[in-house]
């Protein structure tokens, strides 16, 4: 029974090392940045990344500008939720193709349009925006990335 503490300590050491290496190998810290290349760490996003480079918004907005809400806490909450869901889907290989955006993420993106284009959108939407809100990306589907 004397070897147990040594075994436990070694295992936990291995776990920490392996965890650290996996984090580095998977470029874990890149997810804390705003760099769009980080979103294409997984090849499933490759086409979206390329499409974004060709889009009208690539000079003014990166992934996080449209796909995360403003403010440190909301931003990292959204990153956390999506990061977990995406990792799970990509690791298990169980996801719908073509990829479909979730309701929560549509909402984030719709609000993102209004961050910059408030004046023009307010004029279009008028006073009833809460009940019958227009969708920007329904028609402007190519501004961010067509795919």
């Amino acid at each position, binding site marked *: *029974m004397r070897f*147990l*503490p040594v*075994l*436990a300590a070694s*295992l*936990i050491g*291995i*776990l920490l090392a*392996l*965890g650290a*290496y*996996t984090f580095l*190998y*998977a470029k874990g810290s890149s997810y804390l940045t705003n760099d769009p290349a980080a979103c294409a760490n*997984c*090849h*499933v996003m*490759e*086409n979206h990344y390329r499409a974004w480079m060709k889009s009208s918004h690539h000079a003014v907005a990166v992934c996080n500008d449209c796909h995360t809400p403003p403010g440190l806490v909301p931003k990292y909450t959204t990153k956390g939720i999506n990061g977990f869901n995406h990792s799970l889907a*990509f*690791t298990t290989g169980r996801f719908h*193709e*073509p990829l479909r955006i979730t309701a929560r993420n549509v909402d984030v993106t719709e609000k993102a349009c209004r961050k910059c284009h408030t004046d023009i959108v307010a004029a279009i939407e008028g006073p009833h925006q809460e009940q019958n809100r227009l969708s920007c990306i329904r028609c402007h*589907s190519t501004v961010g990335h067509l*795919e």
Partner: protein
Amino acid sequence: MADYERREKTGFGARTLTVAVVAAALVTLAVLALLVNIFERKQEARNPFYRVVELTDDTEDPALWGKNFPHQYDGYLKTVDQQRTRYGGSEATPRTPTDVDPRSVVAQSRLEEDPRLKTLWAGYAFSKDFREERGHAHMLADQTFTERQQVTRQPGTCMNCHASVYVPFKRLGNGDIFKGFEKMNQMPYFEARKAVNHPVACIDCHDSQTMQLRVTRPAFVEGMRALKASQGEQNYDVNKMASRQEMRAFVCGQCHVEYYFKGPEKRLTFPWAKGLKADQILDYYEENPHSDWTHAESGASVLKAQHPEFEMWNQGIHARSGVTCADCHMPYMRVGAMKISDHHVRSPLLNINNACQTCHKWPEAELRTRVESIQDRVFGLRNRAMEAVVALIGDIKEARARGAADAELDLPRRLQRRAQFMLDFVEAENSTGFHAPQEAGRVLAESIDYARQGQLALRGAKVPGLQTDSAVRPASATTPKGPSK
């Protein structure tokens, strides 16, 4: 007492330690599994293809190409499938193989589905055997063994679109595909058949070194040059001047088009010098007199429209938006980390998810309904046009039996030629109007009108006849003059 002492020494009980060991082991296992998964995913993205065989400009056999491009080849092989949609697609029909025709499965007979087609094509080989087209894999066998071969002698020209001819053309022309093309056109069918080995293959659309799309059919090169010249662009060279996206339609347009065999040398020719619309093609056939056969019942010099998918698509909204054949019939799909074109060429209705929903974000059922409602309407119009043309043929036949002079029958016969070609232009086109719904409707409406005029002319009425649309319009009807923007 002993247990207490041990706890004193280490600070933890044996049970706690065991749990810690097991937990650490399990988590380590999970992290290791994740690491390997990440490694695999990264590897997927690394190598899009392995060159296991060296391809050259003379590699004809698609199986060799398939060694370098197994995913594309898998799809290509799937074109043997026979699956129906509401208006298209073939159904596997069993038949007893004979010495002349060893096929044990064919497609359903269109002549049995609609016997009016026999009247339409009376005196022409198509009235003997005409079946729904099957997938690319069957193109060579289905043409070799059709009963049409037994009632008529066809030229080697047919091989242009029923076989992989790029390498055979090169062989026959000593490296010059145009010379090889001319030679094969003049061979009898079964002699040319010996010069070819495969249905359409990789090399017919792809350059063996760069995999870029390229046009390999002289008739398309010449047809496009004539079409572009009519639009004011001289010396158009499709392989040098077409964009990558245009090529995704042009390689298909090498075969899915209206054509005829010009002159005694049987040169395959696309009648595009006046434009791609049905009436422009008819005008071309008036200026460059051509008829496919003399109608057995009416005596009219008539034309058979072939599958003008490329021409019809050109009149539609998808072409207008820059969406090509490959975008819907060979949509992109993901295999591992690769994005490839689905080489299982087929109806988009069998693959709505990839074919339509990439752009049209509506439920599958909704999209199918949209397509089928267009096709229902066009098919209804097609049936009415068919009735009208068959009625005109019947009337001319009756007048002939009565002993009417050829001079009297001249205008009705010319109207039949026009009405019949326009009907056939939609009937033979493989989308039941979907490629250009309004154009299909217009062409059928004009077909019905020509048939009506033909019947009136037979009864001695004065009709506008073969005048074009602008001449038919009465002086009182003016074109709206508002600004177009």
